[in-house]
C-alpha cells in the first residue's frame, strides 16, 4: 500500500478496532464461520459422526452427480450435475469471453456504442429468475421466437419447446446464459480497453501495424488483468448457477439440467432427514473448483 501518513495513524489499537468491529463481526459470524463450518459438516454423516471423505466419495458415486457413462456412450443428458457444470464452463466461458471482448472492441468505434452496451448489459441487471423466464419464453414451442424463426426458414418441423427435452435443455440453457452474461465480460473489457494508453496505439499505427497485429500484440496482453477478472468471475458464476435452472425445469426433465448448486440444495432441504453432509461436500467441491483462480485474481487486485 501507499505510504501512510503517520499523523493519521492512531497510536493505540482501539480506534482501528472500533472502525473495524462491525465489519469483522458480520464477516466472522455470517461468512468466515459458516465457510469453516461447511467444510467441517462435509466430513460428518447424517448422525453427526466423523466420517472423513465418505460424503465426497458418496457424492461421486451418485448418478445424478457424476454420470460420465451417458456422455461417453454419446447418449443424451443427464450426465450428472458436476459434468453439467463442466459442460457449462466449456461452452459458456469461451463464448462469453469472446463475445465480451468482441463487443468491447467493436462498440468503442461505433456511434451509439454506449447505448448498445447498455442494452447488452441489461441481462446482468435483471434477476436470474426473470432471465430464466425470458429464456423459457424464447424456447417455447408456440410463443417462442426461436421456433418462429425456424418456421420462417422452412425448418418448422424442428419446432418444439427446447427446454422440455432432456436432449436439448442443457445446451439451450447454456447458450441462453451466454446472452445473459456477455454484458459483464464486455463491461470489464471496456474498462480495460480505456485503461490502455492511447500512445501505444498511435505508435503502432505510425509503425504501420495492421489492426490484427495491434489487437494481438498490444490489446490482448494489456487486457490481461481484465481477462483474469473476467475468467474468474465467469467461472464462479457458471458453478453457482441455480436460479435459471430452478425456474425453468427445477433441474429436469429427468435431471438433464441438474447443476451442483441445485443438487446441494435438494440434499439439504428436500431430504428427510436433511443430508447436510453431502450438501456441504458438494458446496466445497464447487468452491474448490474456483479457488485457484480466485486466489490468484484477488492477489493481483490487492497488489494493484
Amino acid at each position, binding site marked *: 500500500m501507499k505510504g501512510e501518513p503517520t499523523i493519521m495513524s492512531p497510536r493505540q489499537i482501539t480506534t482501528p478496532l472500533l472502525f473495524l468491529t462491525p465489519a469483522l463481526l458480520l464477516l466472522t459470524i455470517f461468512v468466515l464461520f459458516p465457510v469453516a463450518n461447511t467444510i467441517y459438516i462435509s466430513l460428518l454423516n447424517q448422525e453427526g459422526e466423523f466420517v472423513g471423505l465418505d460424503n465426497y466419495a458418496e457424492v461421486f458415486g451418485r448418478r*445424478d452427480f457424476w454420470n460420465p457413462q451417458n456422455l461417453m456412450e454419446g447418449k443424451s443428458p443427464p450426465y450428472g450435475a458436476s459434468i453439467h457444470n463442466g459442460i457449462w464452463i466449456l461452452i459458456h466461458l469461451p463464448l462469453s469471453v469472446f463475445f465480451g471482448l468482441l463487443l468491447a472492441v467493436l462498440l468503442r468505434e461505433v456511434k451509439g456504442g454506449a447505448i448498445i452496451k447498455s442494452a447488452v448489459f441489461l441481462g446482468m441487471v435483471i434477476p436470474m429468475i426473470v432471465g430464466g423466464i425470458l429464456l423459457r419464453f424464447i424456447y417455447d414451442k408456440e410463443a417462442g421466437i426461436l421456433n418462429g424463426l425456424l418456421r420462417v426458414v422452412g425448418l418448422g418441423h424442428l419446432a418444439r419447446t427446447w427446454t422440455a427435452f432432456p436432449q436439448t435443455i442443457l445446451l439451450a440453457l447454456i447458450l441462453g446464459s451466454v446472452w445473459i452474461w456477455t454484458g459483464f465480460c464486455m463491461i470489464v473489457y471496456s474498462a480495460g480497453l480505456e485503461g490502455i494508453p492511447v500512445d501505444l496505439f498511435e505508435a503502432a499505427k505510425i509503425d504501420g501495424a495492421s489492426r490484427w497485429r495491434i489487437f494481438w500484440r498490444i490489446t490482448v496482453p494489456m487486457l490481461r488483468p481484465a481477462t483474469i477478472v473476467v475468467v474468474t468471475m465467469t467461472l464462479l458464476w457458471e458453478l453457482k448457477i441455480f436460479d435459471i435452472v430452478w425456474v425453468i425445469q427445477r433441474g429436469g426433465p429427468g435431471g438433464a439440467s441438474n447443476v451442483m448448486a441445485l443438487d446441494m440444495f435438494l440434499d439439504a432441504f428436500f431430504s428427510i432427514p436433511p443430508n447436510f453432509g453431502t450438501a456441504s461436500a458438494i458446496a466445497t467441491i464447487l468452491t474448490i473448483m474456483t479457488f485457484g483462480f480466485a486466489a490468484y485474481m484477488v492477489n493481483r487486485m490487492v497488489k494493484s
Partner: protein
Amino acid sequence: MKRNKGISQAGWMAIVAGLIIIIAAMGVVLYLTLPAPEKPTLTVFSLWSGTEEENFLEALETFEEDTGISVRHVGYDTLELLITVPTQLQAGVAIADVVIAPWPSWILSLAGEDYLTNVKDMIDTTKFPETYLDVVTADSAIYGVPFKVSGKPGFWYRTSFFTDNDLTVPTTYNEFETLLADISAIDGVDAAIASGNGVGWPLSDTTEAFIVGLGGYQLQLDLIFGDEQFNSTAVKDVFVELASLLQAGYFSVPDDFDAQVAKVWDGTYGIYFQGSFITAFEPFASNLDDVGFFPLPETDGATGAVDYAIMPALTKHADEAQQLIEFLASAEAQEIMVGLGGFAAAHTDVPDSAYSSIDLEVLQFLRTVTIVPDLDDAIGGTFQTTFWDQLKALWVTPTMDLDTLLQTLQDEWSAPSF
C-alpha cells in the same frame, strides 16, 4: 467519461437522491395501501389450485361457519411443497398447521423425525378402508387422515358398444384375452385397446395395470422401493405377456390421450385404460350413462393416490388444528368435496347418493383393492423419462429384446424421493 459535457457530479448526486426518494416513497405508498396480510388462525398447505382449490375452500367455509376458526389455504407446486414443509419443520417452525399431501412414504419419513402428530384418536378408524390407513401407520400411531381418493381403475368403454356387439365384461384374465380377440374381429375396429399419448404417462399407466394385475400389488411396491429387480422373472413374465398382446395387434398406435376418447366412442377402438378423471372428457362427459369400466380381471390393486391430511407437531394452534383434522376426517366434509365431482371420498359413510353413478362404481372398486403409488411418479427422476421412452419403443417394436429393456429400467432405478 471522455468528455466533460453532460451532467455534472452534483447533477448525478441529485439524480441519486431523487431515485432514493422515489423508491422510498414507493415503499411507503405500498406499505400504507396494501391491506395487512390476514392472520387467520389456521394455515393449510396443499397441492391444489384452480377448481380443486375452489372445491376445498367451499368445504372450509362450512368449517369456519361451524367452529368460527378462520382458515387460509395456500396451494403449492409438487416440488415446492416437498421442500417447504421439511424445511419449516427442520427450522422448528410450523407455518402450516395442516398439510394435505398424497405421499404416504413421505408422511412416514416426516413421522420418523417426530415432526407429525399422531391423529389416531382424532378419527374413527373403522370408517376408512384398512389399506388407506395402513400405509400411514407406524408403531400403531396413525399420521395421516385419508381425505380424497383418485385412481386408475381400469379399462373404460362405451356400454352400448358392448351390448351392440354382444360383448361381456371379463371376470377372468382368460375372458379378457377372449374379449380382446372378439373386439378386434369387429368391423371398423382398428385395435381393441386405445393407447394414449402425452409424454408417455398413458402407456406407463397401462403397463402398471398389468404389473399390478398379473404380478400383484406387492410387486409394484417392491419395484418402487427397490425390493424387487426389474429383470426378475416376475417382472419379465408381465412384460412378455404385454409384448405378446402388442404383437397380436391389440393396442392402437399412441395418439393424443384425450382424442382417443372420441375414437373409443365411435368404435375405432374398444376399450381404454385410464384414470377416473377421464370421465370429464368428451364424449364421455356428456354421456356418463353410457360409460362403464372394468378392472384388469383378478387384479388385487390399483394405482392411485389418496390425499392425506397431516398435522405438524410444532403447530401453535394444536386445538384448532385438531378440530380441522376431525372435520376433514368427517363424512360431512368429504361429502362436500365429492359433490363437486371428480374424486371419491375415503370415508365409508359418505352416502352413495353423493356420487354420480360412475364415480360410485370407481369408488366401490377402489375400496376392494390396495391402492399403490404410481410407479414412475414415485421413483421419478431419470427413471420416469426412461420408463416412458422404453414403453414408447416397446409399443412401436413389440419384438424388441425385453432383457435389454428391463436392464435399462433397472439401471435407472433410484430410491423414490417420497
